[in-house]
């Protein structure tokens, strides 16, 4: 393909100005949540359009809609002058729109060649491994991928190679519009160069490319134009050479009306004892993490989604295997940590998904609150829940949980109140470290305020809080320190007045 003589002819200027895809005023609702709320953008033939934005700005929703994986709630899309509303991924591919997904969409037990060839067979006919291998060899070498053997099982590949296969599969559909949804997120600089070379080949042919990424450095290199999304709406457009990274970062972070955050407790004194100290922590998805937290300190974990925050919190609770050069809780070594041991050592955890990891939905509010303490409540004998009644009432009062009582099944509570139950377990239970995974995700403003208040009170009482939030404003307003993770490492630690939205986004996208 690369040596096709026709391709060396430069595309004429007229081709470049012709619109390929026009999206206007797209909205997408999931229940009460607006994933998209007025996104408009245009991609011309032969150009690279960047879509940039913070976590949850709606970029991935846009890719899923264009790829045919989901529909829009309202708004119009025109592709090559005709209305476009693909109802399936294969239909979109046939129309000429192919997408390399952020969440890898390859079948792990299939070989590379099966993943490349089978989708276009649509489940019919004979399948020869040898022919598929030869065909894949041709596809891979045409796209200058030389280090992969098509007979390798995809599940045995590293993340970067899997991502390359996903990109190759999208390009092999010969699309006229290619969507790359965070397609470079696992690629190293060599891989990114490879991807850019492919993009330049395609755009020279008049193919439009929509490049979704957080990485501003890559965007300044490859994008002809771009659109900034914030809270589901397109808020700014830019063209090559007319923008600075600072402008873009402030557009992405936004200057939306600030929510009311309670006053942070004072920074603990430097001689306050360390509740948590880890050096060189390694685990799946994490490489050599150093982290400390003093009693009374609130330490935020920042960064783009999927950079190891989930893994880090799980490891610190003993819920995932990890090793470290030094790992101390309250000054004493934490070896072979498991969740029960972590609880005994004074660690508490609010996991990512309250419905599956946090609660037993059919059990009562009281039973769920007491879950970590059941063993100590029934030393060999029958369970004595009644003796804990005053503690339960205290927690329900303190967090203003709206429930019919301690006997109500926790599954009947609203999301915010369920989250308070997961959190409430650790109140007045003599904790030294509390680990929170995005505790305010998907709950209403009032419940958020109540959780903020409870967090700060715990910190004031001397609990070290280590937490991850996908909301920038929360990290900025509620943390003494923020460790920004990037690809399983601490990219930067921000302290005190350094903690600003721009600094966090900057550290996460690698400009600072």
């Amino acid at each position: 393909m690369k040596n096709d003589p026709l391709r060396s002819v430069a595309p004429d200027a007229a081709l470049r100005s012709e619109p390929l895809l026009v999206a206007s005023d797209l909205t997408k609702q999931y229940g009460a949540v607006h994933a998209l709320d007025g996104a408009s953008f245009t991609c011309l033939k032969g150009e690279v359009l960047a879509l940039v934005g913070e976590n949850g700005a709606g970029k991935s929703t846009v890719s899923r809609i264009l790829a045919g994986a989901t529909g829009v709630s309202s708004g119009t899309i025109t592709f090559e002058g005709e209305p476009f509303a693909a109802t399936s991924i294969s239909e979109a591919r046939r129309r000429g729109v192919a997408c390399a997904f952020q969440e890898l969409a390859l079948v792990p037990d299939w070989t590379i060649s099966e993943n490349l060839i089978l989708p276009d067979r649509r489940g019919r006919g004979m399948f020869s491994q040898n022919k598929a291998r030869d065909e894949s060899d041709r596809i891979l070498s045409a796209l200058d991928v030389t280090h992969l053997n098509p007979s390798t099982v995809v599940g045995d590949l590293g993340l970067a190679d899997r991502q390359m296969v996903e990109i190759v599969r999208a390009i092999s559909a010969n699309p006229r519009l290619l969507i790359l949804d965070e397609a470079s997120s696992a690629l190293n600089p060599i891989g990114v160069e490879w991807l850019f070379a492919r993009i330049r080949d395609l755009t020279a042919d008049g193919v439009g490319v929509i490049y979704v990424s957080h990485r501003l450095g890559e965007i300044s290199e490859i994008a002809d134009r771009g659109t900034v999304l914030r809270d589901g709406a397109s808020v700014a457009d830019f063209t090559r050479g007319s923008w600075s990274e600072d402008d873009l970062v402030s557009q992405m972070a936004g200057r939306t009306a600030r929510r009311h955050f309670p006053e942070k407790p004072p920074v603990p004194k430097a001689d306050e004892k360390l509740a948590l100290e880890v050096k060189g922590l390694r685990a799946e998805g994490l490489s050599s993490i150093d982290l400390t937290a003093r009693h009374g300190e609130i330490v935020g974990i920042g960064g783009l989604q999927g950079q190891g925050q989930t893994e880090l919190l799980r490891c610190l609770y003993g819920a995932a295997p990890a090793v470290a050069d030094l790992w101390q809780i309250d000054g004493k070594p934490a070896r072979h940590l498991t969740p029960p041991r972590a609880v005994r050592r004074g660690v508490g955890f609010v996991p990512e998904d309250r419905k599956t990891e946090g609660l037993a939905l059919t059990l009562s509010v009281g039973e769920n609150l007491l879950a970590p303490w059941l063993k100590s409540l029934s030393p060999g004998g029958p369970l004595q829940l009644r003796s804990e009644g005053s503690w339960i009432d205290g927690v329900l009062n303190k967090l203003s949980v709206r429930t019919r009582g301690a006997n109500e099944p926790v599954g009947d509570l609203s999301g915010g109140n369920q989250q308070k139950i997961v959190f409430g377990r650790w109140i007045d239970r003599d904790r030294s470290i509390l680990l929170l995974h995005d505790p305010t995700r998907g709950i209403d403003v009032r419940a958020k305020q109540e959780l903020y208040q409870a967090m700060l009170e715990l910190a004031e009482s001397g609990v070290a809080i280590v937490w991850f939030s996908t909301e920038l404003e929360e990290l900025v307003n509620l943390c003494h320190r923020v460790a920004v993770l990037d690809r399983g490492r601490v990219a930067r630690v921000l302290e005190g007045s350094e903690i600003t939205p721009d600094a966090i986004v900057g550290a996460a996208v690698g400009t600072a």
Partner: protein
Amino acid sequence: MSATTTATITATPPPGRLASGFKRLRYDGALAPILAFVIFFAVYLAINPGLLTRFQLQSAANLIVPLALIALGQLLIVLTGGIDISIGAITGLCNVVFATQIAGLSTPGALILCVATGIVCGAINGSLVAYANLPAIAVTLATAFIYAALARLILDRPGGALTDGIYKVTSGELLPFVPVSLVWLTLIAVGLWMFLQRTAFGRQVYGVGSGRAAVQSAGLKPRLTILVTFMVSGAVVSFGAIMLAGSTLTGDPRSGDSYLLSSIAVVALSGAAFIGGRGSILGTILSAAVLGMVGSLLFFAGINSYWQYVISALIILAVVVIPRLIQFGIRQSALRRGPA
């Protein structure tokens, strides 16, 4: 960028290439059961060299072949990530359909009706699992009762109208030392292998077990794949039922009952992944041979036959658990050493 990230492209784990059959067998978990088969037969021959006589070879084959076929039916379902609890009931139903209908219809007519019964049973299971999105274990548990009841309605006690001719073509000898049942098993196994490994559809069977969402996002039809897999499984099970009827010369509604647990045990021994996506035909057949002959091994060794189940369980545990433990050890030590 540190040195580690720059090296990512080339520093991927050693690629397990699946071009050759050996690598494919290893990937599908078949190496441990193949090894277990070799060891088991060495022990068996040491205790009972008489296995290699014409009579014993033939009766061993007639014991193994129905189990192997029914276990292959179970393997197909397991590949998609499901399990078939109704497999024993389907066996019993097909068995009595074949044994009774052979009286009225011609032999080919009874054969077709029997295979059709298996396919319809599979289609009912498969459509409930694929299109009603119900778990296979619940669906097949429910249909197991229905199929078993139907079998008893057709024939409520062992009987039927099977003739010696049927015995000869299913369970006799094709040539000296070549039991005809092994020939049938080989033909069906090769056909199934062609289906699974050499058709685009067959690869999708592995695909839906490996990642149903990924198959869907590749623009393929996982639901149809699951439905057809259940139907093929039903057909394979019906062949097992015919072999069973032929070798015992009786139709029996309860003949399939013991095959539910033993087919699952065979698939477990074969190294297939119960979450789906991995499993091999050869591994399943050899595992059926091992588990099918534990009982007669103990007979020749003069051990109480109740030990059969304990020995079978120990074989499965050894073959399944030891490789896992080795893998776990390798992963732990890699984590301890840290990233290269």
